[in-house]
């Protein structure tokens, strides 16, 4: 499906065990440059653990995670991986609540992360232009000076997506972006992700099948820590094994 595009992310035989429980069972997955992929699966299928492994929060027991040409992510920690160009949005929206919407984006903006820089940093006009542009994309322009903790749930989700954009990652990992959103917000979010996908690769973990269908991208179904099925949404939803996993219990 991805044709001859370069591979951006490659998971090869990744296994993770927590106290005897196999969260990931020799999971393999290939993501092409510029691709958007939806990952679905019942609870405990290993979706969040997969994100944890890619972003350096969890080290796999076995297996390889390769980013770009030959960068081995399993040897790196979270800030190093973030620096490399992998951004992550959490299931529960986590924004910096005491800060304004503007400051949240300012902190997320790609740039020098060292204390010796932030200690003396002054906001540049280039930075404010970029924040303005992101605010427009995530539709939070009127809320720029609000304390982000006071935003609605859906607005926080967008702010977090905006923070991801500000990081300018090559790859975005988005965990359940529409959980708790209204139908209208869900639709806008799908649109937003498609817009983002024009310039970046995206992996979306989601429960909401209508949303996945709206995205219209290749779907990977996880079950018990490995890939059960892969293909278009119609393909996987007609796959008897997928039907069994979703409906069989």
């Amino acid at each position: 499906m991805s044709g001859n595009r370069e591979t951006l992310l490659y998971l090869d035989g990744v296994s993770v065990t927590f106290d005897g429980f196999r969260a990931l069972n020799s999971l393999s997955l290939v993501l092409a440059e510029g691709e958007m992929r939806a990952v679905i699966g019942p609870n405990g299928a290993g979706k969040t653990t997969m994100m944890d492994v890619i972003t350096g929060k969890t080290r796999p027991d076995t297996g390889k995670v390769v980013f770009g040409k030959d960068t081995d992510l399993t040897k790196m920690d979270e800030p190093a991986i973030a620096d490399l160009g992998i951004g992550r949005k959490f299931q529960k929206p986590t924004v910096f609540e005491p800060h304004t919407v503007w400051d949240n984006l300012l902190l997320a903006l790609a740039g020098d992360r060292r204390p010796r820089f932030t200690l003396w940093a002054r906001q540049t006009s280039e930075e404010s232009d970029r924040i303005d542009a992101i605010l427009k994309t995530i539709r939070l322009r009127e809320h720029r000076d609000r304390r982000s903790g006071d935003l609605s749930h859906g607005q926080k989700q967008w702010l977090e997506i905006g923070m991801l954009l500000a990081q300018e990652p090559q790859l975005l990992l988005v965990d359940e972006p529409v959980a708790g959103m209204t139908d209208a917000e869900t639709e806008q979010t799908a649109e937003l992700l498609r817009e983002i996908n024009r310039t970046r690769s995206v992996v979306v973990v989601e429960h909401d099948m209508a949303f996945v269908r709206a995205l219209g991208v290749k779907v990977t179904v996880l079950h018990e820590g490995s890939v059960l099925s892969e293909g278009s949404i119609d393909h996987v939803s007609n796959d008897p094994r997928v039907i069994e996993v979703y409906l069989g219990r």
Partner: protein
Amino acid sequence: MSPWTFRLCLVAVLGGAALLSVLNLALPETAAFHVPTYAISLAGKYLSFAMLALAVDLVWGFAGILTLGHAAFFALGGYAMGMYLMRQIGTRGVYGNAILPDFMVFLNYKELPWFWHGFDNPAFAIAMVILVPAVLALIFGWLAFRSRVSGVYLSIITQALTYALLLAFFRNDMGFGGNNGLTDFKDIFGIPLQESSTRCGMLIVTAIFLAAALLVARYLVTSRFGKVLIAVRDTESRTRFLGYRPERYKLFVWVLSAVIAGIGGALYVPQVGIINPGEFSPANSIESVIWVAVGGRGTLVGAVLGAVLVNLGKTVFTGALPELWLFALGALFILVTLLLPGGILGLLGRPPRRPKNVTPAAEPAE
């Protein structure tokens, strides 16, 4: 932490110290508004404690590190100053020994221990006031933050740190005067310590250092560094996924805070006239956390206010009903936690929330 409370605090600290000094020096002792010299030293002590409180607020209020051992840095700064003051005594000690302080003669020391060398030089002593707390904080912080020790566990090891130092400094053969500590100081920088003018001078110097520390702290917490720090305090893991290394931010503010505490201790010792291992006691560190909680955590100004008010209360209370002070302190902490989670500053500090239905879009753009 609105600008006006901050400015008011600076004016109160500097102006208060100047006013007290004038009332002490310019008025005859019989005048109604004369301030006795002991009150000058008392005020100096409160402001030294305010520096400790400020140091605690910087790490607890802005980096989320609940330190229960910050008095250790305060006491180390105090000991460095105390060692200098001991060497200033010279031959005026009870035993009249030009090199060895009284306690060393008493304990049969033959020569000055190596770590006492250089403390006759004020510049060296001042450098040590800063370096000793800084190096200890650097080593401790590097180990703790790198291993991602946080929360209650970190609080417990800070407590262990100060307790270990307490036990060590109690030992006579450590060479710091054991149980009695360092005392009987005569001069500071060649000026007699007991003079009223010296006392006023020290109060004013303390006020200046406190004001400077407030300015540094305020710059820090309102800078982009401070914004990252607050983000680390509330959601440390999220900052990692943004590419920040929280341990570096924590380490920087931790070391800076230790230095502020150490300077506070160095200013404290000449004004109270003694430093002993009791300053390392865990209760002192916990008390400093209470000052911050009472004044308002994460406000800087609240730390200063809390330190001065609680210590003023302590002075009055321990004079009138000494056995009840600890109960009063405990009750104060519980009441503040339950009724005033934002401390005294919390009552007036936070600007009223903008009504929900007013659209901020009407505001002019920056």
